[in-house]
C-alpha cells in the first residue's frame, strides 16, 4: 500500500505523539500499513497544522510521502496532494520530483483526473514551476471538457498570486475563457477576472449578453461574483435611469427656477434592461448571498419604481440565521434612508423580540427609526415604549436614542417624546436616566423657552446622577439657558465647585463652561465662584482643563492687558447655537457598494473596487454586439417559409417576417415602458437580430469577394429611397408607427436594404411552397393535446428529421392537428411561447380554419439550443377561437442532432481526436445482429450510418443542430457476442443522455 520508508518513519512519529494514539481510528496502525485507512490517517496527522504548532514539523517526511503520489488508491493520492501543497514551499527541490506525475495526469483521457492534476499543480507554490503552470493553464483553457476549463479558471488567480509578472499572459487566457459558453466555466472565470484584471472592463463587452443569459444556470457562488461584477460594469456603460428625478431633486434643493435644463427623455439601454430582467428571478434563490447580490444590483442600477421588488426578498432573509440577519439589516438600514417607501409595508417585520441578540435589536431599531414618518410614528412609539422596559440596558439606551431621532425628524411628536423621556428621568436605572438626559439636551436645544421646567427638573438630578456624560449634558444645558433658570444656575455651580476635584474630565470642562457663562450673565452672584473654579482648574492634572481655564480667564476676566477679544466674550459664549441634527450612522453609506465588506465596516477594505458613478453620456452600446458565424440565415428567412395547405397569403407572411425584424428597429427605443417576463421571447429574438445586424454591418464593411453581399450593396445603392419608403410602409401596417421615430443612423443605411432583399425574394404573389414531409413509419409521434382535453381538437407532433430550411439551427417539428369535433376550429396559432433562455422558435403560420373531421399538418422550427435541462420548452399555446391550451414539447435527445456523412477513416480520425470527450461504454449480452442495431440506433437518434466493411462494428455520425458539435456513436460486437457502445460528444449532457437513450433502445 505504501512505501516501507513512509511506514517506518511515520511509525516513529506516531509513537512520539500521544494524542495520535487517542484517536480511535488509528488504533490499528501498529499492525503495519496494510490498510489504506491507516495510511490515510497517518497522512492526515502529518498534514495536521496542529502538529506544526507543537513544533513537530512533518516536512522531513517529504520524500517518503511524495513517493506515494503515484499510488493507485484515490484517498491516499488525495492526501498526498494535500501534503504536497502544504509543504512544497519548504521543500522546493523535492517538490519538483512530483511535477512529472502531474504533467502525466494532465494528459489523462479522464477529464476528472486532468482537472485534479491541474488543481494540485497550480496549488504548489514554487516559483520555478511557473512556466509549467502557465503552459498547463493555457492548454487546459482549450480543453474539450468544460470541467477542465473551469479548473483552469480556478488556477489563474493562484498563478497570479505566485507570480504577478504573468498578468498579461493570464489576461489572454481569461479573455479566451470569458468567451466560453458553458455555465460551468462562467462563474469561475469571472472570479479570476475580478482577481487579476478587474479594471479591464473592455473584456466584458463581447460577453455581456451571454453572461446575462447564462446567469440563471450558473452555480450559486458564481452567480454572486458575476452579479457584483456586472453591477460595476453597468455603472460604466449605461445611463442613470433615475437621472431626471435626481436632477429634479437637486433643482428643488437649489430652488433655481431658471435652471430648466434641457432634459433628454431617458431611454433605457436594452442591455441594461436585459440585466435587470435576468437577475430578477434570482431573488428567489435559497442562497442569501445571491439574493443580496441581486438586491444591491437593483438598488444601484434599477429605476426608482422598480427597486421595490427587492424588499420582499430581503425581509425574507431576515428569518435566516442571525449572522445573515445582521448583514441584511445593515444593508436594509442604508437602503431605508434613501428609499424609505420600499420597506414601509414590512414595518412589522422589524419589530423586536426579547429573544433577539442585542446587535440585531439595535439594527432593527435603526431601521424602524428610518422608516418612521407622520403616519406610522404613533405605532412605532408605542412599540418603543415596550422596548424601554426591557432588561437589556444597552438596547434600552439605543431605544432612547431612537426616540430622540424620531422627535427631531417629526415635529408633531416632539412634545410627546419629550414628555416620555422626562418620565424616564425618574427611572431606577441610571443608564436609562443618563441616556435620556443626553437626548433631552439635544431636543431642548430646539425650543428651550418652553421648557424651563424640564431644565429645572434636570438641575435637581445633578445630586443623584453619576454618569459623566449625563452630568456634563445637564451642566451644559443650565449654562446655555441660564437666563431661563436664573435662580437655580448659580446654586448648581456652587455645588459643582464643591465636587470639582472628584469629577470626570468632561464634567470638569462643562463646569468651567458653566462658570464662564454665568460670570458673563450674572457676575454679581458668581464672580467669586468662577474665580474659585478657575483656580482649581489651573492646577488640574489634565492639561486640557488647565488650557481651558487659562483661555477662559483671559477671555472673560477684564484685566489691563485683556485683548480685543474680551469685548466679544458674551457673543462667543452665548451665541445662538444651531440645534444638532440627529443623523443615522448609516447615512451616505451607500457610496460603498451594498452587500460588500467595505459597506458593512464603513471603511474601505483591501481589494475593494469602487462603484463608479454613472457616465454623463452612454458609451457606444454597439461594443456589446456579437458576431454570428452563420450569415445566410437572415436572408433566407422568408424565402423558404414553410406553409401548410391552408397557409396564409404571402402578404401576411411579409408581415410576419416584418414582425420578427421589428423589435430590432425599435431596439434603440427599447421596451422601457413595458417589462415583464412574458416578453422574454421578443427580447431573445431581438438580441439575436441585433447580432445579425451587426454581422451584416461588418460584412458590409469588409465585403471582400462576397457575391451575395455585393448584390446587396448594389441593391442598396439603387433602391435606397425606394426601400426606405417600403420600410416605412411595412412598419406602418404593423400598427406601431412610432417605432420608426428612433431608427438610428446605421439602421437607415443597412436595414432597408436588408428588408428589401426579403421583399425581392418574396414576391407579392401568393406562392405556396408545399412542405414535403416524408411520412415515415418509424417516426414516433407524441401527443401534445388529447382529444378530450382539447375539446375535440387533438394535436400530435413528431420530429420530422427534415432539415428546417428557414433556419438550419432549428429542429423541425411536425405538428398535426385533427379536428374531431362537430364544428370547425378557427385561427389555430401559437400564442405566447415561453422559451428557456437561448431557445428560439419559428412559429407555423396561423391556420385560419380547420373544418370538422379534417386533419392538417404544419411544421415549426425550434432551436432547443442543444439543451436538455429545459427540454420541456414550454407551451406553444394553441389557441382556438375560445380556448387556450397550455402544452409543451419535449424533444428526446436523439432529435437534437442531424446526420452527417462521414467515411470510416474520417470517423476513426475524429474519434481519436475526441478521445477526451464524453466516452460512455456499456456492455451488452450476446446475440446482436448488425441490422437490428442500425435500425434501433437510427430510431433512437437522428444519425447516419458510417459505411464500413465489417459487420462486427456499426458506426454512426451526426452533429447537434444548434452548435454543430460532432456526435459519434459506435457499437462494436466482440468475439464472445457481447457488444460495446461508445458515444463521443463534446457536449457532456447530450452525450450522457444519448448513451442512456441508445442503451434503452438496444436493450428493449
Amino acid at each position, binding site marked *: 500500500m505504501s512505501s516501507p520508508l513512509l511506514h517506518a518513519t511515520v511509525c516513529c512519529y506516531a509513537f512520539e505523539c500521544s494524542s495520535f494514539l487517542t484517536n480511535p481510528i488509528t488504533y490499528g496502525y501498529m499492525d503495519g500499513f496494510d*490498510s489504506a*485507512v491507516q495510511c*490515510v*490517517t497517518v497522512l492526515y496527522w502529518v*498534514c495536521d*497544522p*496542529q502538529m*506544526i*504548532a507543537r513544533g513537530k514539523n512533518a516536512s522531513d517526511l517529504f520524500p517518503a510521502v511524495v513517493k506515494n503520489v503515484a499510488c493507485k488508491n484515490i*484517498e491516499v493520492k*488525495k492526501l498526498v496532494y494535500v501534503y504536497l501543497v502544504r509543504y512544497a514551499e519548504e521543500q522546493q527541490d523535492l517538490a519538483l520530483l512530483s511535477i512529472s506525475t502531474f504533467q502525466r495526469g494532465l494528459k489523462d483521457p479522464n*477529464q*476528472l*483526473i486532468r482537472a485534479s492534476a491541474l488543481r494540485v499543480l497550480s*496549488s504548489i507554490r514554487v516559483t520555478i514551476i511557473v512556466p509549467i503552470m502557465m503552459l498547463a493553464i493555457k492548454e487546459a483553457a482549450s480543453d474539450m471538457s*468544460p470541467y477542465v476549463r473551469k479548473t483552469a479558471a*480556478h488556477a489563474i*488567480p493562484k498563478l497570479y*498570486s505566485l507570480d*504577478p509578472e504573468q498578468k498579461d499572459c493570464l489576461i489572454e487566457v481569461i479573455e479566451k475563457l470569458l468567451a466560453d459558453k458553458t455555465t460551468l466555466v462562467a462563474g469561475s472565470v469571472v472570479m479570476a477576472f475580478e*482577481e487579476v484584471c478587474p479594471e479591464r472592463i473592455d473584456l466584458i463587452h463581447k460577453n455581456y449578453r451571454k453572461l446575462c443569459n447564462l446567469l*440563471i444556470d450558473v452555480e*450559486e*457562488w458564481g452567480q*454572486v461574483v458575476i452579479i*457584483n461584477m456586472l453591477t460595476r460594469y453597468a455603472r460604466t456603460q449605461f445611463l442613470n435611469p433615475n437621472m431626471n428625478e435626481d436632477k429634479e431633486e437637486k433643482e428643488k434643493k437649489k430652488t433655481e427656477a431658471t435652471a430648466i435644463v434641457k432634459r433628454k427623455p431617458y431611454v433605457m439601454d436594452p442591455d441594461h434592461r436585459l440585466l435587470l430582467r435576468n437577475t430578477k428571478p434570482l431573488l428567489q434563490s*435559497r442562497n*442569501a*448571498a445571491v439574493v443580496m447580490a441581486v438586491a444591491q444590483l437593483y438598488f444601484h442600477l434599477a429605476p426608482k419604481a422598480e427597486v421595490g421588488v427587492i424588499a*420582499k426578498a430581503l425581509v425574507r432573509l431576515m428569518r435566516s440565521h442571525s*449572522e445573515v440577519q*445582521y*448583514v441584511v439589516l445593515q444593508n436594509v438600514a442604508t437602503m431605508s434612508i434613501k428609499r424609505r417607501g420600499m420597506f414601509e409595508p414590512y414595518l*412589522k417585520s422589524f*419589530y423586536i*423580540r*426579547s*429573544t433577539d*441578540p442585542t*446587535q440585531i435589536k439595535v439594527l432593527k431599531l435603526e431601521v424602524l427609526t428610518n422608516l418612521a414618518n407622520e403616519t406610522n410614528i404613533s405605532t412605532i412609539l408605542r412599540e418603543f415604549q*415596550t422596548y424601554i*422596559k426591557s432588561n437589556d440596558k444597552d438596547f434600552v439606551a439605543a431605544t432612547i436614542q431612537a426616540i430622540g431621532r424620531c422627535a427631531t425628524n417629526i415635529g408633531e411628536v416632539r412634545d410627546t417624546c419629550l414628555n416620555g423621556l422626562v418620565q424616564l428621568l425618574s*427611572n*431606577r436605572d441610571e443608564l436609562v436616566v443618563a441616556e435620556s438626559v443626553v437626548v433631552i439636551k439635544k431636543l431642548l436645544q430646539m425650543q428651550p423657552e418652553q421648557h424651563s421646567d424640564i431644565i429645572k427638573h434636570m438641575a435637581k438630578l445633578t445630586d443623584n446622577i453619576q454618569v459623566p456624560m449625563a452630568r456634563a449634558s445637564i451642566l451644559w444645558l443650565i449654562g446655555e439657558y441660564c437666563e431661563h433658570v436664573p435662580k437655580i444656575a448659580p446654586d448648581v455651580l456652587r455645588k459643582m465647585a464643591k465636587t470639582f476635584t472628584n469629577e470626570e474630565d468632561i464634567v470638569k470642562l462643562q463646569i468651567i463652561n458653566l462658570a464662564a457663562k454665568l460670570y458673563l450673565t450674572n457676575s454679581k452672584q458668581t464672580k467669586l465662584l468662577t474665580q474659585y473654579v478657575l483656580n482649581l482648574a489651573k492646577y488640574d492634572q489634565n492639561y486640557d482643563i488647565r488650557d481651558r481655564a487659562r483661555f477662559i480667564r483671559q477671555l472673560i476676566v477684564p484685566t489691563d492687558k485683556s485683548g480685543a477679544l474680551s469685548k466679544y466674550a458674551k457673543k462667543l459664549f452665548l451665541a445662538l447655537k444651531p440645534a444638532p441634527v440627529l443623523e443615522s450612522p448609516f447615512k451616505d453609506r451607500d457610496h460603498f457598494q451594498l*452587500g*460588500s*465588506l*467595505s459597506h458593512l*465596516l464603513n471603511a474601505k477594505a483591501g*481589494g*475593494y*473596487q469602487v462603484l463608479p458613478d454613472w457616465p454623463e453620456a452612454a458609451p457606444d452600446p454597439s461594443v456589446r454586439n456579437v458576431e454570428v458565424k452563420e450569415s445566410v440565415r437572415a436572408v433566407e428567412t422568408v424565402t423558404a417559409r414553410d406553409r401548410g395547405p391552408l397557409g396564409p397569403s404571402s402578404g401576411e407572411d411579409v408581415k410576419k417576417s416584418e414582425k420578427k425584424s421589428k423589435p430590432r428597429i425599435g431596439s434603440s427605443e427599447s421596451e422601457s415602458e413595458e417589462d415583464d*417576463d412574458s416578453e422574454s421571447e421578443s427580447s431573445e429574438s431581438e438580441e439575436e437580430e441585433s447580432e445579425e445586424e451587426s454581422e451584416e454591418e461588418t460584412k458590409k464593411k469588409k465585403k471582400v469577394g462576397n457575391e451575395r453581399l455585393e448584390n446587396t450593396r448594389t441593391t442598396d445603392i439603387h433602391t435606397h429611397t425606394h426601400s426606405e419608403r417600403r420600410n416605412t410602409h411595412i412598419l406602418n401596417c404593423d400598427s406601431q408607427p412610432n417605432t420608426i421615430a428612433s431608427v438610428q443612423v446605421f439602421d437607415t443605411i443597412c436595414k432597408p436594404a436588408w428588408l428589401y432583399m426579403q421583399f425581392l425574394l418574396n414576391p407579392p404573389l401568393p406562392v405556396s411552397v408545399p412542405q414535403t414531409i416524408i411520412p415515415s413509419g418509424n417516426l414516433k409521434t407524441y401527443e401534445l393535446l388529447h382529444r378530450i382535453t382539447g375539446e375535440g381538437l387533438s394535436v400530435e407532433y413528431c420530429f420530422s428529421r427534415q432539415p428546417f430550411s428557414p433556419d438550419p439551427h432549428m429542429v423541425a417539428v411536425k405538428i398535426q392537428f385533427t379536428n374531431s369535433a362537430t364544428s370547425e376550429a378557427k385561427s389555430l396559432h401559437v400564442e405566447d411561447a*415561453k422559451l*428557456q433562455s437561448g431557445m428560439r422558435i419559428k412559429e407555423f403560420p396561423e391556420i385560419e380554419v380547420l373544418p370538422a373531421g379534417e386533419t392538417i399538418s404544419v411544421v415549426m422550427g425550434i432551436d432547443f439550443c442543444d439543451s436538455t*435541462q*429545459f427540454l420541456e420548452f414550454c*407551451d406553444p399555446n394553441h389557441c382556438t377561437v375560445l380556448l387556450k391550451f*397550455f402544452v409543451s414539447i419535449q424533444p428526446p435527445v436523439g432529435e437534437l442532432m442531424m446526420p452527417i456523412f462521414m467515411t470510416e477513416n474520417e470517423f476513426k480520425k475524429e474519434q481519436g481526436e475526441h478521445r477526451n470527450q464524453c466516452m460512455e461504454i456499456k456492455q451488452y449480452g450476446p446475440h446482436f445482429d448488425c441490422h437490428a442495431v442500425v435500425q434501433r440506433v437510427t430510431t433512437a437518434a437522428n444519425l447516419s450510418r458510417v459505411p464500413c466493411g465489417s459487420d462486427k462494428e456499426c458506426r454512426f455520425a451526426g452533429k447537434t443542430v444548434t452548435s454543430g458539435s460532432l456526435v459519434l456513436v459506435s457499437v462494436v460486437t466482440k468475439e464472445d457476442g457481447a457488444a460495446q457502445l461508445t458515444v463521443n460528444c463534446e457536449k457532456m449532457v447530450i452525450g*450522457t443522455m444519448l448513451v442512456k437513450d441508445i442503451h434503452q433502445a438496444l436493450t428493449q
Partner: protein
Amino acid sequence: MQLPAKMIHSLFLVNSSGDIFLEKHWKSVVSRSVCDYFFEAQERASEPENVPPVIPTPHHYLISVLRHRIYFVAVIQSEVPPLFVIEFLHRVVDTFQDYFGVCTEAAIKDNVVVVYELLEEMLDNGFPLATESNILKELIKPPTILRTVVNTITGSTNVGEQLPTGQLSVVPWRRTGVKYTNNEAYFDVVEEIDAIIDKSGSTITAEIQGVIDACVKLTGMPDLTLSFMNPRLLDDVSFHPCVRFKRWEAERILSFIPPDGNFRLLSYHVSCQNLVAIPVYVKHNITFREGSSQGRFELTLGPKQTMGKGLEAVLISSQLPRGVLNTNLNPSQGTYNFDPVTKLLSWDVGKINPQKLPSLKGSMSLQAGASKPDENPTINIQFKIQQSALSGLKVNRLDMYGEKYKPFKGIKYMTKAGKFQVRT
C-alpha cells in the same frame, strides 16, 4: 507587493470554552494568533450570540457564525461579500450535520479525516467548489457504523473509488446511477408561525413561514411536478436550484429533477393580507407588589382556532426578572423548572386538553428590599399541530415523468410555533 487574495483564506473552529480545536488553511498558513481578536470580541460580548459576525483586524477580517455552540471563524484578507462567506460557513455546518448526524465538537473530532476531506473538496483556493451534498457524497461517503467496521476489516476507505460525474452534468445536484428497490417520495409541509401578542391578547404581528422538505428516493432521473390547490397563498418563495423558475412563474407548478435524498425544496412566506389565525391563547397574571417580597404568578393556556387539531408538545419558557429569587409554582399538568441562576422558567406542558386547560399558579419570592422589577417577563411558547398547515396550503398532486415505475408518494403537514412571544 501585497496582492489581494480573495475569498476564504483559513478556517478555525472554536468551541464554547474558547479553544481552537480544528484549523484548515487553503492558502498559506495564517497563525492562529489571529483568533485573539476574536476572543477579545467574545469577551466583550455579554451573550455568545452577540459576538459581531464581522471583526476587522489589522491584516485580516474575521467572519464567524455560531452554530451548535461552535464558532466557525473564517479568515479573509480582502473585500468579499460578507454574506458569501456566512452562507458558505452555514453550508459547511449543514454538510457536517448531514454527514455525522450532529455537528458537535466530539463528532468533528471523531471524524477529523472526513472533515478535512470535505473541507478540501468544498473550497479550492478559497473559492467554493463542490457544495452540493449529492456530489460530496459521491466523492466522500458518509461514515456509518457498518462502513467503519467493514473498512477496518477490508482496508477500504470512505473515499469513493469512482469520480463523480454529477459535477459535469447539467443537473449537478443529482448524483447519477441512483437505484432503489422501493421508490418513494415524501414531502413534509412544515409551517412556522411567528407572532408577537401584546398584554391584552391582541396580535401585534403574526406571520407564517413554511418550508417543504423532501425526502426523495427514486431510481434514475425522475422529473417531478408538484402542484398546489391554492398556490396564490404563497406570497414569497425561494427555491432549491432544481426548481424550474419559468414554469413556476407561468403556471405556479413546481417542476424539478430532485436531488437524491433529503433536501429543502421550497421555503415560502404567506402573505400578510391573510389574517393569521392564532392557535393558542394565554391568560396571565404576573404581578409584583412594591415593598413586598412576594409576587404572584398565574398562567393558563387554551387552544384557539386550531381547526379541530390538538396542540402538542407545548413548552413555555420565560426569562423572569433578575430580582426573582425562587418560585413556588403548581402546574396542573406537565413539569416545570426554574433555574435560580439564569432566572429561566420553563414549563413542559405536553398536550393541551380543551376540556381541562393547563395552568401554572403560585408565588415568586423576590429579593428582600429590592425594588419591584419594572418589566414583566415575556412568555415564549412552543407547540406543534400535526396534520395541518395553518395557512391552509394544500398540495394538489405529484406527478412523475421520465421513469416508468410507480413511486410511493406521501405528504405530511405540520404547524409549529416559530418565534411566538406573548408580552405581559
